[in-house]
């Protein structure tokens, strides 16, 4: 197995477990932990030589983070 693929799988598993069993049960900690498996998935996609897919994935991950941040601030304002 390729070294990059194995490293990506390890980071993906660590990130998924940390999102599922987040220690301080807050939205911010879960949101930050959600970025870890994204980088692991990026390493796995790097193994398959799809540059356009990686570019789109990185951009959409950042946009999704921004949307969730706006949602969290709206929820705090409504409470």
């Amino acid at each position: 197995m390729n070294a990059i693929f194995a490293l990506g799988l390890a980071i993906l598993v660590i990130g998924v477990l940390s999102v599922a069993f987040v220690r301080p049960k807050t939205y911010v900690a879960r949101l930050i932990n959600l970025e870890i498996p994204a980088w692991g998935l990026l390493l796995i996609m790097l193994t398959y030589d799809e540059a356009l897919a990686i570019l789109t994935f990185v951009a959409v991950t950042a946009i999704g983070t921004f949307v969730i941040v706006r949602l969290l601030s709206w929820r705090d304002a409504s409470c």
Partner: protein
Amino acid sequence: MILILEAAFGFIALVGAISAALIRDSYGKLISLGVLVAGILPFIVDRGYIDVAITVALIAPIATIFVLMVARREEA
């Protein structure tokens, strides 16, 4: 890539992922997320995807700034 460099960058990425998962503070999580990105970026450069490396280097700090907007609000 040279084997010892590959092992070193893989170790940096793993340490960043584990510490980002285990640290309880929000700012500490963001800092270790930066360590994780620093470990991953040389692998992208090694495959020859310079455009992907430029995009990641531009977008990763922007995502950190987005999360920082919520982290500061939670702290106050």
